């Protein structure tokens, strides 16, 4: 990809867990991940809870610091390590790399009402020239995400808002500064099915005007397919990217055994198809511990095709049929 907006090089993140008195344990939440996000492109990051996708998103926004590897941002015709950015450069990066957080209940400072949660970034980045204009823009943003009439919401505090409403406010705030890159972490998970498409369509329409790139994090393959159509999808398992490539190609013809099993398990809203599908073969239903991950390929304990080499050697992401897959058997 020529001049991607943001790229990670062999990034890993380890968390320490354990009490003060016991031995400390380590969880490798993200292991050796190298991905690129192009300007105005969508990369859906799909995986189940605990696979490290949220952590990877936060690393790319410098909300967490990686333990190894680099994260580079394209700025002024060159790549800069995000942790080396200072002053105006850092301000530009911060404005252009926004987060829609997973937990909507932590979206707004509980001491502030909705209006005072939306106006500061508009004023700070001089998108609005004064309070009056900021208020007008805040009203437009709330209307865009379907919180109408906006004036009804201005004075409310987060304790008076539902998860779905808070999620929409988080979206409004992220798009308000017209960023080049948004990490959307389960951005529509709290919304009812009928509202999800509306919000996703809103983001897609805005993207046409403002050209925002997305790292769209979700556990829901169907939502990922909808949002990242004609774009790319990455599948993550226990800290590793196992498959990455064009969305429709992966959905129609998955190569990695984990991707295959995932696709066989996603519920399909069609009784004839749903009732005729078999159960995917899995050696075990238990997800391995992150503290003591299995040696070699982490999926081998559950993989129906696992062979000896899978227990011994970690597979690398290699090019197979026009995409990248990490599997010894291909």
């Amino acid at each position, binding site marked *: 990809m020529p001049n991607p907006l943001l790229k990670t090089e062999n990034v890993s993140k380890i968390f320490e867990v354990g009490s003060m008195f016991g031995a400390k344990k380590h969880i490798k939440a993200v292991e050796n991940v190298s991905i690129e996000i192009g300007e105005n492109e969508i990369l859906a990051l799909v995986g189940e809870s605990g696979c490290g996708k949220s952590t990877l998103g936060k690393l790319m926004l410098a909300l967490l610091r990686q333990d190894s590897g680099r994260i580079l941002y394209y700025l002024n015709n060159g790549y800069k390590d995000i942790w080396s950015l200072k002053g105006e450069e850092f301000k530009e990066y911060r404005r252009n790399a926004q987060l829609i957080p997973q937990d909507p209940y932590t979206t707004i400072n509980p001491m502030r009402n909705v209006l005072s949660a939306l106006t500061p970034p508009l004023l700070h980045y001089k998108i609005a020239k004064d309070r009056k204009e900021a208020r007008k823009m805040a009203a437009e943003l709330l209307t865009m995400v379907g919180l109408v009439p906006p004036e009804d919401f201005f004075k409310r505090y987060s304790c008076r808002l539902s998860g779905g409403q808070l999620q929409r406010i988080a979206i409004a705030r992220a798009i308000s500064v017209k960023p080049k890159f948004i990490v959307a972490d389960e951005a529509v998970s709290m919304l009812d*099915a009928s509202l999800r498409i509306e919000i996703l369509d809103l983001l897609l329409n805005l993207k046409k005007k403002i050209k925002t790139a997305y790292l769209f994090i979700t556990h829901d393959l169907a939502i990922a*397919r909808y949002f990242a159509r004609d774009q790319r999808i990455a599948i993550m398992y226990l800290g590793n990217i196992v498959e990455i490539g064009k969305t429709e190609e992966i959905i129609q013809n998955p190569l990695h055994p984990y991707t295959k099993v995932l696709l066989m398990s996603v*519920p399909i809203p069609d009784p004839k198809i749903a009732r005729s599908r078999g159960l995917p073969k899995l050696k075990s239903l238990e997800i391995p511990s992150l503290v003591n991950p299995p040696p070699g390929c982490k999926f081998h304990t559950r993989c129906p095709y696992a062979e000896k080499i899978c227990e011994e050697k970690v597979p690398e992401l290699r090019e197979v049929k026009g995409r990248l897959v990490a599997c010894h058997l291909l």
Partner: protein
Amino acid sequence: MSKDSVKKKDVILSIRGLTVEFRVERGILRAVDNVYLDIYKGEVLGLAGESGCGKSVLAHSILNIVDPNGYIKSGEILFNSNGESIDVLKLSKSKLRKFRWSKISIVFQGAQNSFNPVIKVRDHFIDTVEDHKGRVSRKTIFKLASKLMENVHLDAKRVLDMYPHEMSGGMKQRTLMSLSFILNPEFIILDEPTSALDVLTQKYIVKLLRDIHEETGLTMLFITHDLATLAEIADRIAIMYLGNIVEVADVYTIFYEPKHPYTKALLKSIPSIVGPLEDLKPLPGPMPDPINPPPGCKFHPRCPERMEICKKVRPKLIDIGGGHLVACHKYKPTK
């Protein structure tokens, strides 16, 4: 299951005119609004709707366990078993305790809260059985528990000796299911039994429920906001909107020939990994305030097919043929 056979089956549970309300700071919230619903013996009935539609409240009402803030304003819940018809809402506290778990079992959303954290899994089984059947030999209890746990792919020897916190979410849910079946209930209510689980475990649990249902003929009420899951397991599906049942039909009819405009719109708004993406459409307009629902048909402000009468008159749930029920002015009942 053919449309005609639905009519001739026995009704195991009949909900008649049920209204449940909650007192909230802004007024009275009618979570369940004059609902009539018959559940047939041996079927899997899916109850679907978005958050706030009243499906969970309806389920809890069946066992008379509504939240302290809420109350059952009116209605009957008749349970038919062994030739007897019992109104659950009129049972005394002690009779209700016996009734729960032995006749009707419920698996709540989020299994984590259902366990006593200071006792092992084996003691949960002992307590449950002894509560209902008095002293039963431990050997018998564990034999039964092991068989049930085997059915849900749990290693009984390991799990019986665990404390709840030692189990993963998936294990807890499966253990809770085994616990729900230990007294051989005739009817089980499952409230979002798979929503907190990873996709692979969800698939296994749904398949297991199908197998159990095939083997035992247990009647199931499966509540979920995820219509796609019901495609695999439900025989019939009831759709709820703001406290009312708006459509009931067999699973194939609901997915392939829905009649109520809300059902149609809901189906069109669910993304899927199969099928063309262009067909998806968002549901128009915001969800109304449940404390002040629209007059007439509650769906009319968002309905693309609304007529004048819809703004004034609440449509009744009528049979349009073969047990297909719809609450919509566009349709007339069959003679």
